């Protein structure tokens, strides 16, 4: 069985990639993808921990609920992405590019 630390490092790497991507990139599509990446890295962590929890208490229902929760999060995330993408399409229709810098109109 793969030790828990492997999952931890993978998840941390994914999360960091996502965070740096959100912070540095200007393309709004890439930023949205990076946000999804961060979310899924956390999901991965959740699955890993609940699996570990279950392995410690075999024969019981411990840790099952965590894995169930991940499925729910994925459904919600899908809905959220649908909304995010439709906002992006509207945004594109308004300003004809996908640069997040053109989202600063409230300042003026």
């Amino acid at each position, binding site marked *: 069985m793969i030790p828990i630390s492997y999952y931890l490092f993978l998840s941390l790497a994914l999360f960091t990639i996502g*965070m740096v991507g*959100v*912070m*540095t*990139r*200007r393309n709004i599509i890439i*930023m949205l993808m990076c946000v999804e990446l961060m979310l899924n890295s956390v999901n991965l962590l959740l699955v890993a921990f609940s699996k570990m929890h279950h392995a410690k208490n075999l024969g019981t229902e411990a840790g099952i609920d965590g894995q169930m929760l991940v499925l729910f999060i994925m459904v919600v995330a899908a809905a959220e992405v649908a909304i995010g993408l439709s906002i992006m399409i509207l945004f594109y229709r308004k300003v004809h590019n996908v640069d*997040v*810098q053109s*989202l*600063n109109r*409230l*300042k003026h």
Partner: protein
Amino acid sequence: MEKYIWLIPLLPLLGFFINGLGRNVLSKNVISLIGSGVVFISFIFSVLVFMNVPSGAGAEPLIIHGFDILNFNSIHIPFSFQIDALTSLFLLIITGIGFLIHVYSAGYMHLDEGFGKFFSYLNLFIFFMLILVMGSNFFMMFIGWEGVGLCSFLLIGFWFKNRDYVGAAKKAFIMNRIGDVGFLLAMFWIYKEFGTLEYTEVFASLTTGQISAFAIGGITLLLFLAATGKSAQIPLFTWLPDAMAGPTPVSALIHAATMVTAGIFLITRCNELFELAPFTKEIIAWIGITTSLVTATIAMRQNDIKKVLAYSTVSQLGLMFASLGMGAYVAAVFHVMTHAFFKALLFLGAGSVIHGMNNEQDMSKMGGLKKFMPTTHTTMLIGCIAIAGIPPLSGFFSKDEMLLSMFLGNKAVYAIGFIVSVLTSFYMFRLYFMTFGGNLRQENAHPHESPKSMTIPLTILAILSIIGGFVGIPELFMQNAHRLNQFLSGVVAPHEAAHTVSHLTEWLLIGALLACVSVAIFIAHKMYNGKVDQEAKGFSKVLENKWYVDEIYQAIIVNPVMGLGNVLKQYVEKSGIVQTVAGVGSFSYYLSKNIKTIQTGNIGMYILLMVIGIITGLGIFFFGMF
């Protein structure tokens, strides 16, 4: 009697609602029929009450309990009526003269567009005045007191499109408020000392002697302050002459016959209280007689026919207060009654003159009306003779009784009262001769006699002015003929001092007064029969300008208050409050101007800051940095 007493105030209230709600729907005939009819029915019931009321010495008042206005813990204020001789007398005056004036108004106001409104206000006034005199406690009297003040305000400002009239209405209202403060404070004080507001209970607990003289003095002074407001005495008298802005029937009903006598009623009602406050009585006497003298002198130089009558009213009220101050309560009530007859008569006569002259009020433009308006002329002459105090008309008896009480109480007050009586006959006959004597001074006027609905009330009031005095024939002429004294003896202890003076002295006093009055009338005839005043100079200019009282009030009260208001406006409002509020605004604007520079609109920057924030937060959470 208990069965119908509650109808007396209820009917005018009903009339108020019917006329008030139907003022645009009902025809003028119906309105005047309802308006006068309800008062007439009240009058009939008042007569029944008058016949059956317990009167005479030791008579117990009849208390009719309606319901409780306030009833919790220790406070218990019922809505109830107290019917005794004094109340029944005032009921007769209010509903009787009120009815005549309603009939008169039907003729006087027939062209006015606010006809229905006028009648509903008059009915409402009658209702509140009846509550004032019928109530069995100070609270009930206060309800009526405020109500008549409201109606007075509404009726003075009845022609509210004229700004001056509105000003007069406001002046009357504000001046009355000053008096009302006195009434309220007196009520609180009475409640604190006696624990009740019922007249009978308050006066009953006076006999135990547990109330300090200071409290009684304070309460009576505050009650007198209330009376000076309503009854137009110094220092609050200036509203009454201005109140003549209202329609003439209003002047007759409210500002001569009924409402302004509320102060006399109040003091007479509380005579047991005032008897224990000699200092207050002294003040009442002096304020009354000073008011009387000042306003009598002003009346000598006024050319507006209603203004003369208004000042004359204040002057007569002053005489009544002076005799109240002497403890002669019955004399004052007697004069309230006779004064109601002849002053209502004079006002209605003046209204008839004004009506006939097409709304001209300036006497210097009248003259010679004798041949155009015979009925008005005769009745006005009777009114003038009555107020001048010439026997055997009603004014003689009541005024003689008042002057006698002053003579016995305080010779200085009597001397002024004597002068006032002479001045009264002078200015009344000045009015008479300027209006009816000589020839008409205005060419394009077409005076005409007023309609029947106006002359009939005049005639009835003239008859009352002639015979009204016979209810109080002094002992000088006939033994035990003073019916009023006997009638009121259950409410007011008879004035003991009246019997201590010899008949010779009384004859001398009456003779001297009548001689001076005749001379005054003769002088008035010489000076004003067909003539008018010359340009006023010196002292007469002071009189013409009403002793500059309004100007003095303007200078020492109105202007300083306005000045204080301006100072507050300038230095507290503008430089204080406005600066503080605007300062908070501009400070936050200044603060935000600096903070808003980090709002770059760069989303990458925001996320970076957010990440830094999260890391800091987690750091604090895990490592306990602080």
